[in-house]
């Protein structure tokens, strides 16, 4: 029956780790804004090919 004690302690540990993860994510501000990131993730890729082709500006000499 000692298996039961082990299992319960494991279950508590697992559950606490979920609680810790939840508290961490709230603290990190992951629930502050639930709209903008969904828009933001669409941006980056489309610009990259353009930015790599920018020629470096040579400062003009007077």
């Amino acid at each position: 029956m000692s298996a039961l004690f082990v299992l319960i302690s494991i279950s508590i540990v697992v559950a606490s780790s979920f609680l810790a993860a939840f508290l961490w994510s709230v603290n990190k501000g992951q629930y502050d804004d639930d709209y903008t990131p969904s828009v933001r993730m669409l941006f980056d890729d489309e610009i990259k090919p353009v930015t790599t082709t920018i020629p470096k500006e040579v400062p003009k000499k007077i």
Partner: protein
Amino acid sequence: MLNENNLCTYYNFDKNPGIKAKGKFVAERFAYLDDATTINKLVQYCSSTQTNVTFSLPQMHCSSCVFLLENLHRIEPGITKSQVNFQRREVFIIFDPVAINLRKVVELLAFIGYEPALSLKDGSKKKKVTYNKKQIYQIGVAGFCFSNIMMLSFPEYFSSGHIEQAGLKEVFTWLNLFLSLPVLFFSASSIVISAWKGLRKRFLNIDAPITLAIIVTFSRSYYEIISGHGAGYLDSGTGIVFFMLIGRWFQNKTYDSFSFDRDYTSYFPLGVSIIQNGTEKNIPVTQLQKNDCIIIRNGEMIPADAILLKGEASVDYSFVSGESTPLQKNMGELIYAGGKQCGSAIELQIINEVSQSYITQLWNNDIFKHKKNQEQSFIHPWSRYFTLVLFSVAIVTAIYWSIADTSRLLPAVTAVLIVACPCSLLLSATFTYGNMLRIFGKNKLYLKNAGVIESMAKADTVIFDKTGTITQSNTSQVLYKGTPLSNRELAAIKAVTRQSAHPLSKIITATLGNVNNDQLLTVNGFKEFAGKGIEATVNDIPLKIGSSSFVNEPYEPEGYGTGSHIHVQLNKIHMGTFTISNQYRPGIKEAVSLLQHKGYELHLLSGDNDTEKNTLTRLFGKNTDVQFNQSPQNKLDTIQQLQQQHKNVLMFGDGLNDAGALMQSDTGIAVSDNTTQFSPACDAIIDGANIRLAPQLLAYAKAGKKIVAASFILSILYNVAGLSFAVQGTLAPIVAAILMPASSISIVLLVTLLSSFTAKRIGLK
């Protein structure tokens, strides 16, 4: 400019992005942002290498906006990072103060079309966010402990306290005790503190009985566990806390991007340019003194009552009165604070300090000094009865058992207090109102808090403002009366008005938009007389358009109500007049008659003159009290009088001139055509187009009260069932454990479904 910085993809994200920067961009406008005290008020963090600042940008409206604003560092390398919070319409910017200064950042934002709404009030909002976080932590902890305690209590339920395995029962109950500690000391703290505060003010608020239930439940459970008697009721105890917190969170979900408590400081600019000894200088608006000479540029707001010294003033008072047509002012005339200059820069001499100005005087009225006393929710009296009944049941139980069997006295009394928790009573109200707030929000009525639903339900008198509330501020109706004009003549008029920047000319040009003429028109000698009219010759025929004095025509057409009359004189013959009047919002007539049918007393308070009386009488019926030429103070007084007659007043209004009246009324609803923009202090904000739904919205508020009452009855039934076990002293943990969540969940489900269903039945979205 976007092209230069490889941001062309901006336009790929949304079919119609970008509202163009309004008006001409004047570089000097943000000069006040060089002032150190102003900067200190705005920035959140400042060091030699970085500065953090948050701007609120009400213009933000689509995904392209997010894209552009998050790529500011490409346009301006001095900006290190910019992050958007779309729902709050805010952007958080980190920039390098060596490379760029605050003023340049603001100018850049204004240049790309997102002029930040800067006000002295910003920067004090940060506390709210941390508070909400604490609430979420509390819910998280309570939820975790509750579910684990529930799980560990299962063996107890099904074996009725007899667990074969030695030691297992003790381990479970001690684990429960350990798990319940954070709930008691962390999660429940806000409830206990609120109850304590209420008691100290000698007011028995709804948190008091809950706190009592929590304390009794936990202490009895701890006693049972420590003495080894039983397993206690920790599952119910943590459950109460968890459901209460959820209910509160649900109700407190507010509209982040709205601000309901504005006063004049949030409208007025931060700084202003003054002329001192011939040089221009920027000072914060609060330091402005009498007789100072100030410069107001295009689009800037006049911060204090002043006299025009130089330049042509065309003042847009749409903030103040809701009337969007600018007023022409001549040299030496008095200009009231709150208007915006449209056109070239003007010089003004201040005659009243900001706090003494006409419009700010409104805020010095007593009603703004103390907050509207939040009327007690109608559940509060109920909860008081409930507490009384509960205590009498407990006392009767105590007396009975003290005679019959003293050993069962304590268990029975504590069981009464545990099971009869008012939690389901409270949940019914919080969840009903929470769901109703959401439904109101869908119909574009945004309430400040749930208390507004109750005050809406109580209202018996409805007051409307005219301009901007029942009329549309952005569209106008143009009527022509007189000798019919040929297509060619119309085209000639259009050709002339097109050259004028006056708003009335623009309206006429827009109305004549589809007039086409195949002949070539040559306009010569175009002259515009400010405040009078325009003059020109078209194909050598003289044409004069303007006021009656301008064309020497005393005749004013009748029956077309207010608005501006524009006379047309062609070839020295008076042809007719264009009447530009405000258009009433569609559906107003139906809404008004429906409200009257339902027995509401209607009033109309208009700041305008009474020329539109006939139209309004037709709209509102003969018995409605319609008052014209009402000053802001008049409106406020009228509402006070009505309240003295024990009327419960609900007011629809807009603009700063209604701010006092909205504050005075029991429910003040601000009407706004653009809900992200400014609105005066109020209890709720409604989208202008949806004011026609007023009768339905009021009916829904009333229905809400019934739903809460119905769910009260259900929760009282649960309480009676629970109490009948408890008074006998036979409350098994399983009964408490089943009754408590079952009642909470069923009530939450019932009120949510009922309120959504009622909304559909009434005809709301």
